């Protein structure tokens, strides 16, 4: 089966500073693929290269089976891009924005109107359709923006951080919509900084760091690599820290001598926690506190790259 999106040795540099340094990835048709990474990792650059807005300095990529440089005009007819900045006009109504996208996608007047009405209904914007976008809430604007990207019935949809700045309810609604798209056979490529988002939506996740893919797999595989749950041990003093670090050795996922904290993988069960505490602290004096928490993007980053997500 041909891939909906594939890249081989994608390179892009700005003023001799590499942003992407040899990116390889493949996405199957109908899948939701999430590119995970901190600010500055090269996520947006990757999306812009796939969307033909940038040309790679080296390497090649195909979207919907078409080369992003040689066949860029045909690629554009197969894709849509919803970027971080809203691409709808505040001074036009929701319906006018969608009808305009229809006309620009080559639909006729009547067809554009019908498509706009349909999308407004699908995105729960029918009542707001005749209002100017300037009056919309952040969540409504984002929904309209996504709808505008779907007017031309793209087979591959690129979403660059689609839920940044949304409240939890709007975020959930956006996730439902994205899941629905994939259900209709559309391939979705989304970038995010949130592990939770990738976890909820994506069939496969790639972690981008410093312009390279440092890990790729299903969310479960990825989290297994960095430990889904972790036990955070706070030691009583420097001596206790040193002996606990010695006992745990390579099982320590992260260690912070300054705060006297050591992280250990755990399945979260009482038996495991109890056993681990007994092993590290048989005299019941060394561990002052412990906390069980889920892996965060920071943990994924720390484990995969040796530095935090802010780095």
């Amino acid at each position: 089966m041909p891939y909906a999106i594939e890249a081989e040795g994608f390179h892009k540099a700005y003023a001799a500073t590499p942003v992407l340094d040899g990116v390889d990835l493949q996405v199957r048709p109908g899948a939701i693929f999430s590119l995970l990474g901190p600010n500055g990792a090269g996520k947006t650059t990757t999306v812009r290269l796939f969307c033909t807005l940038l040309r790679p300095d080296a390497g090649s990529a195909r979207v919907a089976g078409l080369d992003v440089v040689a066949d860029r005009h045909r690629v554009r007819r197969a894709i849509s891009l919803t970027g971080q900045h809203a691409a709808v006009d505040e001074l036009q109504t929701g319906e006018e924005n969608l009808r305009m996208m229809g006309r620009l996608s080559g639909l006729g007047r009547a067809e554009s109107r019908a498509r706009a009405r349909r999308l407004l209904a699908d995105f729960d914007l029918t009542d707001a359709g005749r209002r100017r976008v300037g009056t919309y809430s952040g969540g409504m604007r984002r929904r309209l923006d996504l709808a505008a990207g779907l007017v031309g019935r793209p087979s591959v949809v690129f979403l660059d951080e689609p839920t940044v700045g949304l409240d939890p309810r709007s975020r959930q609604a956006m996730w439902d919509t994205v899941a629905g798209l994939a259900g209709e056979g559309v391939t979705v490529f989304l970038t995010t900084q949130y592990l939770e988002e990738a976890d909820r939506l994506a069939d496969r996740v790639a972690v981008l760091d410093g312009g390279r893919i440092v890990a790729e797999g299903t969310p479960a595989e990825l989290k297994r690599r960095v430990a889904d749950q972790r036990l955070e041990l706070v030691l009583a003093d420097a001596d206790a820290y040193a002996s606990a670090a010695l006992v745990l050795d390579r099982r320590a996922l992260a260690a912070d001598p300054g705060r006297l904290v050591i992280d250990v993988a755990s399945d979260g069960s009482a038996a495991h926690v109890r056993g681990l505490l007994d092993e590290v602290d048989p005299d019941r004096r060394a561990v002052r506190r412990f906390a069980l928490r889920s892996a965060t993007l920071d943990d994924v980053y720390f484990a995969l790259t040796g530095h935090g997500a802010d780095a």
Partner: protein
Amino acid sequence: MPDVALTMAGRCIRLSMRQLDALLTSLLLPVLLMLIFVYLFGGAIETGGDYVTYVVPGVILLCAGFGSATTAVTVSQDMSGGIVDRLRSMDVGGPSVLAGHVAASVVRNAASAVLVLGVALLIGFRPAAAPLEWLAVAGVLLAFVVAMSSLAAALGLLAGSPEAANGITFLILFLPYASSAFVPVDTMPTWLQGFAEHQPVTPVIETLRGLLLDTPTGEAWTALAWCAAILAVSLAASGALFRRRTA
């Protein structure tokens, strides 16, 4: 491409109509300027005839320059928002985007020119133009507006932000003052006369004045040549700037 450019033009016209403050400024400012020139300065300016008759072509041109210059701001707004990426990802190219802005500028300017002419007729402007000459006036104005709007579009691509674009447009606005628009060139200092006589606005003004007042012009071809040259340079610059801005 023509269909796409028309859609883009429709969009820009709709957006212009809805920016109420900008719309009022571009419609009312020329009228106010005309009233200021006729009633405040006009008494002291000797042009060898009725000043309102002398100044109306200049005001129409000033307002065309002003209306065109706002194109820089609208283009810059599009370039700094997310819309340009979406349009390009839909295979809507730079020429269509810019053509839409220029077309909207033509419509805006047509409206303000009609308004200025209407008020001018009310305060005593008596043109002597025949229908064919009115047509020629419209043609010359169209050429000027298309040329200046394209120049403004290129400047809008050059500017880093809509605010910067707004600043740049003032440069365009100064040109009509250093021309024969408001005072005869031979009343200016000698060093300025050379510039005023050979800058693009003066032949356009003189052509409009000749057509409206039914006097020999002789500068029509110079005026059109200037417009064509400005348009050609602007289009070439826009193409290069659009590619650079979106690389």
